[in-house]
């Protein structure tokens, strides 16, 4: 049973996180920050472009970290 649960967990980790956890970390972090801002009253006109820009900047940063590390 434990082996099965471990295999299922590993499958979903590989499926969603893939071989670079930093991308998932960036997306989730940006999402959490954006959610907090929205909950504090920031409207869609500001939240949407901020969210999109943060995801793009985060992705670019991850790519440069990857290339520098390799």
């Amino acid at each position, binding site marked *: 049973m434990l082996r099965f649960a471990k295999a299922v967990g590993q499958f979903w980790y590989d499926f969603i996180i893939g071989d670079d956890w930093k*991308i*998932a970390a960036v*997306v989730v972090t940006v*999402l959490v920050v*954006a959610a907090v801002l929205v909950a504090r009253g920031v409207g869609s006109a500001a*939240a*949407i472009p901020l969210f*999109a820009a943060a995801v*793009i900047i985060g992705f670019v940063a991850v*790519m440069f970290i990857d290339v520098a590390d390799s």
Partner: protein
Amino acid sequence: MGSSATWALLLAVFLAAIVEFVEALTIVLAMGITRGWRSALAGTAAAVVALAAFTTAAGYAITTWLPESALQLTVGTLLLIFGLQWLRKAILRSSGLKAMHDEAQIFDKQRQAAQAAHPESRFGLDWFGAVVSFKGVFLEGVEIVFIVITFGLNAHKVPAAIAAAAAAGVVVIVAGALAHRPLTAVPENTLKFGVGLLLSTFGTFWAAEGLGLFAQNGESFAWPGGNWSILVVLGIWVAVSRLLVLAFRRRAAARADADVGAGVDAASVTEGA
């Protein structure tokens, strides 16, 4: 959802499904040729049944338990992570920092592994061939199901998304049956780049809409310009990807120059599927 956005959605599903079907076909072909077609096809059929059950369960759970904005947020976030993973690999490959996906090489590796495996019979089948075929079809199939469900439910176009994936399956299976070898002519890296861009675009779009879940009324946010903003987001992702490829190509060329003396191949920096 407008017709242009719907066509983009169907194109994304079709291309993503082509890529995954080609990868699954390579595995099934290798098993069929080396371990026997009966076992390979039995494994494939079992995987199709498992996928159907998975699709039904996942689709029911998502539509039953998630409100609209939560659905957009969940699906958008997953698509974004998934799409950016594809885009990352495609950018590294296009810039020469990662080895290109080679279907012929994968086929050879699978065939060698199948030839080396000890014969073991269960339920009248060659167990190695059946299990490897099952795993290959199921794992690649889950990615197709994931894309079909997420795109289909969020855009309220599930039948169209299923039709696009099924059409891709028919194209690949017919081509594979005619060629009787891996479909190496399919420009898989280019397709992955395109699909990565589309998944990232729709992921960004829907995740941002889903942020409305945290607003006081809990309703989905609306992008300025509605669905037309999808084109703007796509344009930005295309530009960002192109700039990254150009920047990394220069870096790869500089590394290649530096490694000439040491005999190191730039594409050997990172490996992967």
